């Protein structure tokens, strides 16, 4: 059901925009890092879908969980099979909005502070999240960076007692996206 709402939101978000206002990437980089006394866990995903409407400030992310690459194969296996259960919940999504878009001039190159609020769905559990970041506006791209933290327990991810000391309860999430204007020919076909 949530997927249905997300698709409707994406369609509304994108179909209401006009040429030159939709910026996208399919090579967004998201990684997470957690440190516990016995274990540091980090994984990277470089094929993240993201879209931003610079008129409304709306932002959407879609992240395929099986695309997170870990240094250790065993960690990757446990992440997919035991914690995230990526076979049943293959994607994480974020849909939100830049809440201070009045302070960002997308027509003038520069680096702007951004405040983002939205709903993050992981493991079929949705929570409200707030994050801060920067948007570097250049004539070619909008380069967005952000870092925020989540608690694994908030997403119904159960950590067995036997490994509880190895896995931190908080996970830092880093976002690095280079958004390009969606080319007008694609947009005409899509609409």
């Amino acid at each position, binding site marked *: 059901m949530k997927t249905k709402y997300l698709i409707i939101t994406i369609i509304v978000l994108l179909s209401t925009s006009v040429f030159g206002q939709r910026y996208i990437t399919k090579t967004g980089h998201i990684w997470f890092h957690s440190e516990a006394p016995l274990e540091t866990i980090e994984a990277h995903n470089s094929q993240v*879908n993201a879209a931003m409407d610079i008129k409304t400030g709306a932002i959407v992310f*879609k992240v395929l969980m099986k695309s997170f690459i870990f240094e250790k194969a065993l960690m990757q296996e446990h992440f997919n099979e035991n914690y995230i259960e990526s076979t049943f919940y293959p994607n994480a999504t974020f849909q939100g909005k830049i809440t201070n878009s009045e302070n960002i001039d997308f027509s003038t190159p520069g680096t702007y502070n951004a405040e983002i609020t939205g709903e993050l769905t992981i493991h079929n559990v949705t929570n409200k999240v707030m994050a801060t970041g920067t948007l570097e506006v250049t004539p070619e791209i909008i380069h967005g960076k952000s870092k925020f933290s989540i608690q694994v327990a908030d997403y119904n991810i159960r950590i067995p007692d036997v490994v509880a000391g190895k896995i931190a309860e908080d996970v830092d999430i880093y976002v690095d996206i280079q958004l390009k204007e969606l080319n007008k020919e694609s947009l005409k076909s*899509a609409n």
Partner: protein
Amino acid sequence: MKKLLKIAVILAIIGVLSAMYVWFFVYNKPHRNYQTAEVDFTLPAQMCYNQYANRADEAIQYTGKVLQIDGIPSSIEKTDSTVIIVFAYNTGMFGDEGIRCSVLPDYQDKVQEIKLMKQVVMKGYCAGYNGTDVILEYCSIITQ
């Protein structure tokens, strides 16, 4: 007393060997070598995309498996961290949609030899479908 000592030494050796086995072959086991891995499914790239996009039952079996696909690449995208070969078959809200193959570092130089609009065969780990694209990771180039 000597017998006890002997048992203790044997147990200690078994313990050390077991710990070494767990450390090297379980905890630090290497990632699967997708370059040499046996292929689970061989199919045309467009068929693979169509099956995922149309939510066909066949598509479910590809996720988490090693696929060998053949098709005509439409573009090559390079970022700081990866090189992606794109097979586009549709256009949607995020632009081109199709199959996106993230290339193994050993093959990133070989990507320059790929000619767009000419047939290429690739092998990689299928991470699944994200609603717009089928994602293949750890890809190697078989023929071009």
